[in-house]
Every structure is written in structure tokens, then in C-alpha cells.
């Protein structure tokens, strides 16, 4: 444990002498400085910048917020390590841990450190954070200026260790300061078995965040833990010669102690800035670009003062780091920081507290609502100004915090009855957010289903989520509202919900989860959907809504040996085109990697004219969509196009987007276009639980959006490719998880095939990879696919190969021989199609 956070003995890695990269020097290795390094690296800044980090503490980077749990014995030091020494070494970042920076020569652009070194910089970032404020008290320091032994601040891991050591050998602690940190320290030391007294100079606890009543509620809860609290109590003198023995208060009382923790606030570390001639008020002054008044010198985190505010929370510090990284790397030259609205939720001394904005009314017209139940340890208040929430304080009951945070951050409308901001009048136990949703508010935007309609279905006897979804179609569109629908159903059913046994089934018509179903299909050698129903369904009953999922599964299992039945197939798969709202179809020819030719474009143009295609549209997947094609024209359109199907209609591999890669792009690191074409060629038409979209980009600028694809491949230079899986940018937005970094296109193809097959064998019907990957678990995914931890890889490779081998272009196949009589007959004989307006 100590090894991880221990002093770094590693020699600084020798950098190539010819390193011509610009230098970013970061002064401070706390939560702001380290985050900046991460953000710069994430923007591929490691290529253009050599990064040197100075850290006052001899450690890697750790999560300062977590020091309280460490002190309380609830977390290990190992748990709070953010970046170890190895982390820096692996990324080529030079960490000078334990080296204090003395000053910056902003004319020569050199950083001078206490070890005598002079480090030139192109950009220097001050991230020096804060230090504990030690109020002036007689006897607090020894003659040499050091703190009297037994007196300790609460800011660093070393101070935490010192307190832990003291807790083992000493009995009585006084904590100075009744703010967040002081309360945390008091509770933690009490948990370590010490008798604790808390001394606070102000009239009530947490006076910076809470009003007097809320502070009183916190006090009660703290006292119930057995901690003695003194408010309006100022310590004026520290007793003891070799070690602290007590403190004297202003009113003359003496409190005995053998440990004195000073948590009376923090002050920004501005010494380096002051010595370097950089403008400082309470902290280092910065503009919206985090820039100080000196060129190429920036400040972020707690040492920065922006528009008059110095923040003491981690969220703003991280926002600073993000903006500055955007600017330094050029990832977003227009990035600007305009301030943070801070909302915090924490557990202090065992009490849930959430605070945002102002705590008391400031204008005559402000509305102020307070609910105080000191006996229960609950104190809630909100401040409303001009119909907007400008502040909220929740102590002891933070169930409404989600709704209030949303109202505070986004200015969403507030209920006319303000009391509903704080309590659910109808049902105190209800899920936050659902109860106060108006009945006529639309829950499912795809199908236009309101909350009332969902509640109505429950009242009519639908007692499970699937039944409500069947009855109302809520959640059956894009699916992004499913969670909300479920919460409303649970709320409306009020505990009378039944768990559908069928929830675990792959399809509703066959009572088996997917793995069992696959095993049974193989065991009974079932090669058609009708055979599956006859053998495995209850009473041999077929089920229309299960057919599509079963057809997909059977194709996956049997490849070319699957027995096709037209009635088992959804209309899109029967006519190999995507049905539109008026009963016409869209036709998307294959255009591998989004690369086309003048000849293809000419043919597409000719077809569009010949068949009066009402709309020709470039798709998001880098292809061309012909919309409004009559069903009976489909075979003629395919014949005239002379191009293979692009599978834009299937639950299958659809498209691989690419950027122009290294051939033409000034920034391209590798041939992303060819790899995209190779991926699409190998996996074209492969059916899967839901559609699969891929992309390959030639550099991390991500022009073809590979980070948000089911499979995304990113060239990082020197022949290396990162493979991301489980990304999404549809109804859900999710960045893919990095599966692996590999060195050849062949490895990309192999890994992609393995991942696809694993998903095909384990994904539920219509479950996209962005749900599958988190469900399966990224770590397990890596273990299975990269280390073959479950011995599956050979079978996965074989399975995907079977599907690759079974590929035939469906357009060419059905042109040669229709799948069934009347396959392309119109189904709307009296309707003139298309009915969409022609632009």
C-alpha cells in the first residue's frame, strides 16, 4: 500500500535529445494538475507536447476527497490512488514528485525548482491548489516555525497518516473548524476510537453552506454520534511544550487534547505566482481561457480566481482542466470557462447533505420555503427567484436532489405548488421525479404515450412492464424511455408489480433464455423457425412477434444451412429494403467505407430519374438512400443499379464509416479507408441481435465518429489501432469502451470478428452493443476476447467464419429467383404510392 503512494525512487526517463515537442510544465500534481495532464493526453497532446509535472508531495496523484474515508478506516490508501508513478512513466510524462517549484522566470520562460533545476517551458500551468489555514494562536508553532507536534492540518495523505498514527497512541482530539472538512475529520477520528471535541468559531456548523436552522440539525446529528460541539468558540492558545496538551478558548475554558486537527479553512497556494510577478488577488487571476496576465502562464483549480470566485470543489477544477486542455491542444480553440454553478451532495458526519446555489433569500421578492423537522434530523429549504430555483439546502433527506439539481442546472419549470419541490404530497415513498411528472406529459416520444396512459394501463390490470409496454407501446420505439416507463409502472402499481417470467426469455414465444435456446436448437437440429415452434414452444404454438428474432438466431447458428421461410421473416428482410411510413421502401446500395465512384453515382442518378424517386438522401452512414421506391419496382431498381445491398434495413452489420485516412488527410496517421472497406467486406450482411454500425478513423480527431460506434477503430500512429466497442450516438449516446490496442489491420479484423460473434451468441434480441457491453462487463469482455479466459476464442472465430462464408448478396439472389410468389406485389393496391411529398 505504502509502496503505491510512497516516495518515487524511479529515475526520470531519459528523453530523446532531439525531442522538438513544445513543453507544457504543470506546477502542482493535485486533482487539477493531474486532470489537466489526462485531458491533454486524451486529446492526443502527447504527440505535440512534452509534459513535465512538478508535485510538492513525493507521491503519484491521489484523490484528496477520499482522505476522510481513509482516516475513518473505510478506504485504503490504495483505493484513492488516481495515477501511480508508473502511470506517468508509461505515458512519457515526466513527473518530478517531491520537487517544489520556487519561481517562474516569465521572460526567459524557465521554471526554477527547489532542487536547483531550471526547466524551460512553452506553456506553464499553475495548479498549486490550497493549503490548510492555520489561524494565529499563541504556541501553535515551535521556535523553528514548524507546527507544534500533535498539531496537524487535514489536507494531505501525510497528514492523514499522522492522524491515524496518533489515533493509535493517543486518546483525545480537538478538531478546529465546523465546516465540511472539520466534520469529516471529527467523525473519522471518533470512528478510530478517539474522544473528539469540535470547536467552531461561528454560530452554527457548516455556516458557509447552511443557514442557522439547517446547521442546528447537523449539530444534533453530530452530537448523537458522541462528538461534543462548541460553537462561537475561538481557540486562542495552544498548550504544550514538546507535544500539544490542550487548547485555550477565548472565553477562558481549556480543552485537554493530545491531537489538534486544524480544519479552519484553506487558502490558495499563491507563493509561486507572487514570486513570479503574476497578478494575484485572493488567488491567481485568470480569464475565461484560464490565462493569467502573463503570456503562456495559466492557472487552474483552487489556486485560480475566475470572475471573482475561487472554487473549493473538484468539479470546477476539472472543468478548468478540460477547457485549458481544449485550448492548449487546439482540440477546441474556442473553448471558454464561464463559471460553475456548484451543486454538492455529500455525507457529512453520517448525515446526507445536498447544497446548491444560495441558502437564504437575498431579495424581497425571493420565495423561501423551509421544512424543518429537527427531531428527525431533517431540514429542507429552497429559494425561488422569478420562477427559477436559485438555491436549495437538503439536510437529512436528499431524495429530491435529482429533481432539484435538474431544476437548478437547467432552469426547468417548477411546480406551482412550491411545497412539491420538497415533498411528494401524494405519496411520500414515491420515486423522485416520477410522482411530480404531470399526467399529460409525454413519456414515450416515439409512440406519443403519456404518463396518464401508462397509469391507465396499470389500473386496467397490466401488472408488469412488458404488459404495459404491449398495451401502450410505450418504450417500444427507440427504447430510450424504457427506464422511465418502468419507474412509472412501479410507482403506479404501488408494489403490486409482478415479475414476468418471460423477462429472461430471448423471444416471448419460446420459454427459454438465449443460451438454453441455442443449446436446444443444436440438440434437436432445428433449422427453421417453424421447427423451433413445433419442438420448443408451449403447445407447439407459433408466435408472430417471435419469428424475426428466431430467424436471426437460426441464421447465426446454421449459416448457409439455415432453412429460410418467408413467413418467418420481417417484411424488410423479405424484400431487402426498409419499409417507410407510406408503405414504400428505401433502397441503399452498398458503398464500402463510404467510398464511391463516378460510375456508381451515374447509375444511382439514372435510377433516381427513371423511377421518379421522390428523395435522394446522403445517409449518416456515408451512403446514398433512394427513398419512396414502390415495392413492385424493387427488383428493377436493383437490376439497374447493379450494386449489392447495403443492408440498411436489417438487424445486421450495416455500414463502416471511414475518414480519408493517410491517403489525402494532412493529419491521417494510417489507412483508415482501406481498413473500413476490409471490415465491411468481411462482415457484410452478418445478422445480429440488433443493427451494428462501425467506423474507422485515421487519427483521434475522430472525423468518422468511431468513438460512438458499436465497433470503432482509431489509428494512433506507428501502425497501432485502438478498438472501441459498445459506443452509441442514437437514442442513447455512449462512448465506446477501449477493448484493445493492436498493431495490424489483421488483428483488428480478428478481434472485431470475435467480439461480433460473442455479441451474437449472448446479446438479447434487439439489445444493442451499448447495452450488451456494460451488461457483459468490459473487464470480462477483455478477459474472454484477449486472454481467452473462458476458452471460447476458437469457437467464436469458427462461428463468425461460418456466417462470413454464408454471405450472398440478397438482391442478386432474389433477382435470379424470387423467394416466394408475389414477393414484390403491392400491399396497398388502391393507394397511389409514394405519398411522401416530393421536394
Amino acid at each position, binding site marked *: 500500500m505504502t509502496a503505491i503512494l510512497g516516495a518515487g525512487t524511479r529515475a526520470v526517463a531519459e528523453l530523446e535529445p532531439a525531442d522538438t515537442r513544445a513543453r507544457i510544465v504543470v506546477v502542482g500534481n493535485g486533482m487539477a494538475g493531474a486532470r489537466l495532464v489526462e485531458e491533454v493526453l486524451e486529446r492526443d497532446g502527447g504527440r505535440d507536447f512534452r509534459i513535465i509535472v512538478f508535485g510538492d508531495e513525493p507521491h503519484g496523484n491521489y484523490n484528496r476527497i477520499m482522505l476522510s474515508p481513509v482516516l475513518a478506516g473505510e478506504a485504503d490508501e490504495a483505493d484513492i490512488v488516481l495515477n501511480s508513478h508508473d502511470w506517468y512513466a508509461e505515458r512519457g510524462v515526466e513527473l518530478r514528485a517531491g520537487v517544489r517549484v520556487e519561481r517562474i522566470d516569465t521572460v526567459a520562460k524557465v521554471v526554477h525548482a527547489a532542487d536547483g533545476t531550471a526547466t524551460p517551458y512553452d506553456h506553464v500551468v499553475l495548479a498549486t491548489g490550497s493549503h490548510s489555514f492555520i489561524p494565529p494562536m499563541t504556541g501553535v508553532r515551535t521556535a523553528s516555525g514548524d507546527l507544534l507536534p500533535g498539531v496537524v492540518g487535514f489536507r494531505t495523505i501525510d497528514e492523514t497518516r499522522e492522524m491515524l498514527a496518533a489515533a493509535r497512541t493517543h486518546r483525545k482530539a480537538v478538531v478546529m473548524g465546523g465546516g465540511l472538512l472539520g466534520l469529516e475529520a471529527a467523525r473519522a477520528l471518533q470512528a478510530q476510537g478517539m474522544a473528539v471535541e469540535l470547536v467552531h468559531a461561528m454560530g452554527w456548523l457548516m455556516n458557509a453552506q447552511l443557514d442557522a436552522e439547517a446547521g442546528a440539525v447537523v449539530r444534533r446529528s453530530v452530537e448523537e454520534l458522541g462528538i461534543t460541539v462548541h460553537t462561537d468558540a475561538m481557540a486562542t492558545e495552544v498548550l504544550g511544550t514538546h507535544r500539544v496538551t490542550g487548547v485555550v478558548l477565548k472565553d477562558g475554558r481549556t480543552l485537554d487534547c493530545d491531537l489538534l486537527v486544524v480544519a479552519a479553512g484553506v487558502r490558495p497556494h499563491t507563493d509561486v505566482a507572487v514570486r513570479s510577478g503574476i497578478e494575484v488577488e485572493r488567488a491567481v487571476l485568470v480569464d475565461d481561457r484560464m490565462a493569467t496576465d502573463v503570456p503562456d502562464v495559466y492557472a487552474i483549480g483552487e489556486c485560480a480566481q475566475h470572475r471573482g470566485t475561487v472554487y473549493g470543489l473538484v468539479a470546477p477544477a476539472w472543468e478548468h482542466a478540460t477547457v485549458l486542455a481544449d485550448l492548449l491542444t487546439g482540440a477546441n480553440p474556442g473553448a471558454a470557462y464561464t463559471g460553475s454553478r456548484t451543486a454538492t451532495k455529500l455525507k457529512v458526519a453520517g448525515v446526507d447533505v445536498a447544497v446548491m446555489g444560495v441558502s437564504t433569500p437575498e431579495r424581497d421578492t425571493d420565495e423561501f420555503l423551509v421544512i424543518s423537522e429537527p427531531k428527525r434530523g431533517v431540514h429542507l429549504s429552497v429559494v425561488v427567484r422569478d420562477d427559477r430555483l436559485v438555491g436549495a439546502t437538503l439536510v437529512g433527506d436528499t431524495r429530491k436532489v435529482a429533481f432539484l439539481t435538474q431544476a437548478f442546472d437547467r432552469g426547468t419549470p417548477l411546480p406551482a405548488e412550491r411545497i412539491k419541490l420538497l415533498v411528494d404530497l401524494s405519496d411520500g415513498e414515491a420515486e423522485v421525479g416520477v410522482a411530480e411528472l404531470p399526467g399529460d406529459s409525454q413519456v414515450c416520444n416515439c*409512440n406519443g404515450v403519456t404518463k396518464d*396512459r401508462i397509469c391507465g394501463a396499470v389500473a386496467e390490470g397490466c401488472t408488469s412492464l412488458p404488459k404495459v409496454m*404491449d*398495451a*401502450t*407501446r410505450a418504450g*417500444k420505439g427507440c427504447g430510450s424511455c424504457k427506464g422511465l416507463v418502468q419507474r412509472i409502472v412501479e410507482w403506479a402499481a404501488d408494489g403490486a408489480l409482478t415479475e414476468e417470467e418471460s423477462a429472461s426469455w430471448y423471444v416471448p414465444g419460446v420459454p427459454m433464455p438465449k443460451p438454453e435456446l441455442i443449446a436446444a436448437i443444436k440438440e434437436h437440429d432445428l433449422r427453421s423457425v*417453424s421447427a423451433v415452434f413445433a419442438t420448443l414452444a408451449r403447445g407447439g*404454438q*407459433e*408466435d*408472430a*412477434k417471435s*419469428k*424475426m428474432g428466431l430467424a436471426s438466431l437460426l441464421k447465426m447458428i446454421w449459416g448457409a444451412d439455415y432453412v429460410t*421461410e*418467408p*413467413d*418467418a*421473416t*420481417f*417484411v*424488410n428482410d423479405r424484400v431487402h429494403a426498409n*419499409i417507410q*411510413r*407510406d*408503405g414504400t421502401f428505401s433502397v441503399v446500395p452498398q458503398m464500402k467505407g463510404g467510398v464511391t465512384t463516378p460510375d456508381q453515382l451515374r447509375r444511382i442518378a439514372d435510377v433516381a430519374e427513371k423511377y421518379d424517386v421522390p428523395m435522394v438522401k446522403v445517409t449518416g452512414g456515408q451512403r446514398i438512400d433512394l427513398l419512396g421506391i414502390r*415495392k413492385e419496382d424493387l427488383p428493377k431498381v436493383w437490376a439497374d443499379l447493379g450494386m449489392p445491398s447495403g443492408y440498411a434495413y436489417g438487424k445486421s452489420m450495416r455500414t463502416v464509416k471511414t475518414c480519408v485516412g493517410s491517403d489525402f488527410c494532412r493529419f491521417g496517421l494510417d489507412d483508415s479507408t482501406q481498413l473500413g472497406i476490409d471490415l465491411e467486406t468481411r462482415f457484410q450482411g452478418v445478422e445480429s441481435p440488433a443493427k451494428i454500425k462501425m467506423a474507422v478513423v485515421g487519427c483521434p480527431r475522430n472525423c468518422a465518429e468511431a468513438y460512438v460506434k458499436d465497433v470503432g477503430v482509431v489509428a494512433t500512429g506507428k501502425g497501432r489501432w485502438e478498438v472501441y466497442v459498445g459506443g452509441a450516438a442514437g437514442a442513447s449516446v455512449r462512448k465506446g469502451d477501449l477493448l484493445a490496442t493492436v498493431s495490424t489491420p489483421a488483428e483488428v479484423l480478428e478481434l472485431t470478428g470475435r467480439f461480433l460473434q460473442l455479441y451474437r451468441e449472448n446479446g438479447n434480441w434487439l439489445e444493442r452493443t451499448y447495452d450488451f457491453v456494460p451488461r457483459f462487463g468490459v473487464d470480462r469482455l477483455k478477459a474472454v476476447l484477449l486472454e481467452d479466459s473462458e476458452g471460447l476464442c476458437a469457437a467464436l472465430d469458427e462461428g463468425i467464419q461460418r456466417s462470413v462464408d454464408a454471405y450472398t448478396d440478397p438482391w442478386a439472389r432474389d433477382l435470379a429467383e424470387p423467394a*416466394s*410468389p*408475389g414477393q414484390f*406485389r*403491392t*400491399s*396497398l*393496391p*388502391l*393507394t397511389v404510392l409514394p405519398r411522401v411529398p416530393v421536394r
Partner: protein
Amino acid sequence: MTTLTAHVVGRADEVPVGEGRAFTAGGTPVAVFRLRDGSLRAVAAVCPHAGGPIADGQSDATVVVCPLHLNAWRWDGTPTTDAAPLPVYPVREEAGTLVVEV
């Protein structure tokens, strides 16, 4: 009470097993399905919810499902969702032809 008129809409072999095909019966568009047991069903060809082509839908012994929004109706025309009912018509096979009464 409305009287039904019988119309020959097409040949019996125009509707493959398990699938649906659309016809017109005296000016009314109808979708005729042949179930897997060989029996016939006839319903309105246009879905009452959003004008979807019912004949393109999938079916089983109990229901037909519209391909546009996956509303389903039992073969007596009653919906399983909150959509309006789907008109149903008597249908039979007669000397190799399909006869629908509308």
C-alpha cells in the same frame, strides 16, 4: 344489417403458406393470409392506426402484426394494443379461386 357480397379476388395459389397478399374486393382493399395450417383469413389491407400495409405483416394462428408500428390484431379484428379494431371479412377457397365477402 348490411348484406355481404362475394367477390372473386384472385387465384388461391397467389397466397403462399404463412404469408399475406393484398387484393381488391369490389373496391375494398383486403389482405388475405394463409396460415400455416392451410386455412385462410381476410382483413382490411390498410391498418386503422397509420395506414400501414397489413399484407406485409407477419402472422401466426392468433394474430396479425402491422409492419409499421407492430400493432397486433386477433383474427376476429380485436386489437391487442389500444389501436382501433381491424375490419375482418369472410374468405374461402372455391375451385382454385379466392372468394372474399365484403
